[in-house]
């Protein structure tokens, strides 16, 4: 693509400018020269900001360079508006026309910036228009925020993307900055930009952030907790299994012990004949009483955890709570009655205040007005307005039915407390005493004879062992119940988390896909750089050897880590030699040129780039750039390009345009080369 026309309106020193930059044959070089302040840099800035808008501000040295206050895009534009154009309805515009090889390869871009009467520019005060094709068809851009994005994409596709613009459109300051870095950094920076690696990296970061945010979002509901929950459920299930196994063991141990007890009882019975039945009954009674005692003890435990715990809050707090609930109920009723009363009062007043009715009742309007407030007050009292209205209920967590339930529960606790616990305690104590009494009766079997005494001793031991194991079994059963309850809660939580995860599966899949794409990108970034090294190193060698006059460097190599080696004829590495400032600039020039060679064709605009170079280097740089088959626009000071250089460029020169400044405006002066066509 070549820049064929540049039109400015109210841009910096240019009130109006229309430059046609047609290329004739192989003449590809344009020189636009002017002294300081005549608008050379303004032309570069106009091209950059027209192409890239707000995104281009980083490439505009005077809006963003170090050492100057950061002006920012809007502030820069406010200064860019031509002095004479300031006032109401002020606007500035830049129009660029590009042509490629084919007839339909045409793009025209116009960007208009509007300013308010105070000369301020805001983000929305900007228009971008694009035309393309042989018939200059308008490119339809969407309205709203998408407009800028689509416009930028179009420019990137049809012309050159913003990330590459700094290799085509640059000034001496930019070149200095690049030359200030070491060679490895320059090459890596240049090539990575040329290949779009920073864009890929940003994309990778964005994908990573997307996946992380997506998962974090899910973690807030279920995602991250689910693993911990699964582990916890597994731990509980293991513990449950262990307790069940232990309980089973205890029960297994009880079976022979109970058999032995029955056997001992049977033998004692056989020794004592008729008393066997009563002895057996005694044991059965003991078992029954023991079970009853255990049941009562369980109820006592329940009572401790429920009613007693609630009752411990004490009668005075319960009474205060019940009073507050009663007050809340009254307040709710009063509020409801007031609402009903207010509605009815309005209806009543409407009926009573009818003028005919008042006249019939012998009341004047003034009398009614004096009477009505009294009536309102009396009405309010009747409907309960005097009952301390206005405060909120204390227990606003309770709904209407909750209030009654809580009141009832607290009343029950009031009645329950002592008697219930005492009764329960007495029952449990009595059951315990009964079991103890039976144990004594069993023990009394001792002493009849040695054999029965031995049997009774064994029976006591066995029974003690059985009691111990039974208590152990009860304790394990309680643990198991507690565990079952916790496990039930966790199972429900897990089921909920799983269903949430299932519902979120599409989002998780997207996060996974983002990760997968990111992995591909990382690989692409790793492979993209080395893949292009050889071609790039060749272009760089060509450009550098053409521009430097020392001639020592014959080959430039770049390894996969991005390390640059400058080799001489004998293959010796010259990279360690400290280059002069001018030589560093030559390398930077070569780098820029190499990148423009591997990038899509686009005009190269250089703003006073030769200041640091000695005459021979200037000569070589000019020759090299002029020899490229690309459009070159030199923005130059008269001192930078003496007639000798102009002569050198002459075979390639398409136009030489000299800017002059008169009456506060810059404009092209008389033409010096026939190909220039400009109108003001």
């Amino acid at each position: 693509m070549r820049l064929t026309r540049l039109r400015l309106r109210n841009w910096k020193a240019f009130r109006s400018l229309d430059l046609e930059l047609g290329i004739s044959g192989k003449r590809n070089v344009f020189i636009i020269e002017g002294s300081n302040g005549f608008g050379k840099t303004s032309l570069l800035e106009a091209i950059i900001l027209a192409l890239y808008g707000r995104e281009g501000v980083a490439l505009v040295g005077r809006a963003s360079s170090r050492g100057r206050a950061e002006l920012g895009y809007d502030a820069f534009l406010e200064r860019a508006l031509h002095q004479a154009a300031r006032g109401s309805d002020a606007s500035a515009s830049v129009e660029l026309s590009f042509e490629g090889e084919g007839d339909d390869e045409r793009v025209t871009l116009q960007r208009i910036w509007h300013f308010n009467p105070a000369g301020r520019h805001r983000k929305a005060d900007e228009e971008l228009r694009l035309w393309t094709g042989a018939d200059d068809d308008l490119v339809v851009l969407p309205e709203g925020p998408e407009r800028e994005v689509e416009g930028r994409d179009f420019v990137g596709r049809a012309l050159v993307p913003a990330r590459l613009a700094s290799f085509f459109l640059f000034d001496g300051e930019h070149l200095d900055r690049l030359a200030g870095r070491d060679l490895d950094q320059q090459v890596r920076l240049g090539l990575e930009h040329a290949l779009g690696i920073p864009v890929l990296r940003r994309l990778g970061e964005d994908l990573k952030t997307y996946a992380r945010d997506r998962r974090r979002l899910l973690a807030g509901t279920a995602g991250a907790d689910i693993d911990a929950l699964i582990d916890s459920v597994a731990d509980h299930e293991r513990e449950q299994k262990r307790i069940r196994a232990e309980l089973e063991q205890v029960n297994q141990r009880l079976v022979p012990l109970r058999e032995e007890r029955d056997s001992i009882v049977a033998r004692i019975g056989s020794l004592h004949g008729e008393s066997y039945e009563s002895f057996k009954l005694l044991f059965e009674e003991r078992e029954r009483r023991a079970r009853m005692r255990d049941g009562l003890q369980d109820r006592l435990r329940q009572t401790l955890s429920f009613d007693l715990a609630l009752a411990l809050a004490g009668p005075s707090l319960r009474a205060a709570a019940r009073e507050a609930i009663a007050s809340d109920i009254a307040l709710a009723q009063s509020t409801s009655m007031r609402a009903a009363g207010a509605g009815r009062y309005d209806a009543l007043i409407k009926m009573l205040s009818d003028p005919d009715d008042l006249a019939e009742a012998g009341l004047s309007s003034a009398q009614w007005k004096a009477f009505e407030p009294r009536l309102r007050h009396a009405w309010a009292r009747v409907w309960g307005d005097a009952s301390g209205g206005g405060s909120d209920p204390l227990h606003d967590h309770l709904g209407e039915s909750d209030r009654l339930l809580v009141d009832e529960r607290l009343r029950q606790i009031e009645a329950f407390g002592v008697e219930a616990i005492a009764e329960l305690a007495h029952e449990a104590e009595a059951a315990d005493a009964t079991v103890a009494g039976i144990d004594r009766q069993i023990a009394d079997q001792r002493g009849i004879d040695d054999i029965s005494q031995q049997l009774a001793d064994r029976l006591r031991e066995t029974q003690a062992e059985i009691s111990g194991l039974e208590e152990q079994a009860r304790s394990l059963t309680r643990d198991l119940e507690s565990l079952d309850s916790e496990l039930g809660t966790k199972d429900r939580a897990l089921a909920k988390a799983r269903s949430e995860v299932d519902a979120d599966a599409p989002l998780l899949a997207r996060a996974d896909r983002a990760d997968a794409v990111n992995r591909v990108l990382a690989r692409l970034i790793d492979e993209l750089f080395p893949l292009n090294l050889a071609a790039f190193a060749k272009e760089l060698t060509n450009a550098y050897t053409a521009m430097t006059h020392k001639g020592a460097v014959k080959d430039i190599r770049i390894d996969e880590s991005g390390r640059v080696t400058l080799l001489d004829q004998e293959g010796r590495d010259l990279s360690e030699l400290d280059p002069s400032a001018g030589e560093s600039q030559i390398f930077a020039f070569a780098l820029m040129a190499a990148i423009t060679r591997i990038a899509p064709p686009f005009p190269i605009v250089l703003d006073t780039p030769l200041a640091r170079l000695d005459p021979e280097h200037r000569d070589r740089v000019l020759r090299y750039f002029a020899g490229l088959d690309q459009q070159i626009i030199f923005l130059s000071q008269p001192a930078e390009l003496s007639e000798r250089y102009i002569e050198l460029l002459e075979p390639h020169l398409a136009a030489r345009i000299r800017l002059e400044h008169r009456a506060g405006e810059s404009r092209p002066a008389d033409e010096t080369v026939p190909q220039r066509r400009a109108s003001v």
Partner: protein
Amino acid sequence: MSLSLIELVRTDFKTAKAADELNSRFQHLLGLPHRYGPARLAIGRSLGIPGAPKFETSFTGFGKPIRGENLFGTGADLASWVTLIVQHSAPERLDRAQLQHAVAAHWNRGIYLLWEDWKASLSDFDSFVARQAQRASNRRIVSAARTR
């Protein structure tokens, strides 16, 4: 924002770690099957004392949480517990976070009071239960049955 009983069902409540360890010890001593047993006794015990409990947050962290539905039950039980805690803090109003803080403080104060009661009962279950029952009603009862 006012309290919502529905929300409190799923709210986690916890107290100081040391108090929670004492809670576990009580669970064992009283033979109670659930952690909420001693926790409820402790909260009830503290609610029986006028004045807001002090609660230092610079201790060594929190103990294990108990869900609202377990700590206070559901329905009338949950509503009653919340009513008593709110009443104890009156006239100050509580939002959910303040209620969680109040529960942590009552649980913490209560479990240490119960521990004093246990020592005063000479580590005797019957005597301990009788003491609590008496405190609950301001009346004296005979000693409760031994449950261990």
